[in-house]
């Protein structure tokens, strides 16, 4: 599993929809169970291009870590444990880029 490693490949070539979908997939399927035990409430920043991530209790610090490790990019961000996947497979969602 990709972790808090070094990478110069950022998520910049992905569209917002792709960052959203891939970020959620990586978070829910690969990271959430493990990170909820050790980093609940902290901010997770995922580089969806490489599936690498950084974690910090402070969002600004997490973004700084992400930039340092992955370069400038467009990342998926979530507060660990704050969102849950709907068991019914349906969840109302509002997207920032839909006016």
């Amino acid at each position, binding site marked *: 599993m990709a972790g808090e490693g070094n990478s110069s490949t950022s998520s910049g070539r992905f569209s917002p929809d792709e960052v959203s979908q891939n970020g959620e997939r990586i978070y829910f399927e690969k990271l959430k169970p493990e990170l909820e035990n050790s980093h609940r409430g902290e901010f997770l920043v995922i580089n969806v291009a490489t599936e690498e991530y950084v974690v910090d209790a402070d969002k*600004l610090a997490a973004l700084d870590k992400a930039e340092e490790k992955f370069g400038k990019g467009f*990342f*998926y*961000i979530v507060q660990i444990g704050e969102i*849950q996947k709907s068991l019914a497979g349906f*969840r*109302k*969602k509002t997207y920032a880029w839909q006016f």
Partner: protein
Amino acid sequence: MHGNFDDFLPKIDIEVQGQGAKKTITAVIDTGNNGYLQLPYIEAFPLGLRLDGLQDTSLADGSIVQHLVCRGSVTCDGVTVTSAIDIFPKCHILIGNRLLSLLKRRAIIDVAGNYVELTESSALPTIQLGDPGEVN
């Protein structure tokens, strides 16, 4: 630095700068908000803020709101810091506690006295504790 109340909301002027433009914006001091700065698109886009990503946030009703996360310079009371800025299609302009912490500012909000001020957090008054035995 003094602010004012607007419909019982404590407000203060801040200056926000992106990669070019700079603008003075009146923001609500929201001490119940543990974030940095929240801006609506109409204020954020002209500033050319640097886009860092998108964030999923869960609301009380169980729905998810996805918003954009940017970075920019915020100046308040003569102090300039780089802050995370959460932007939404429509929202109130809010200063959260993390931005107050970055700015190293203490908020004095006296609703009854109609008084709003941000001062240096290092300028805390010394609290004089009395002898518990003297309590009447």
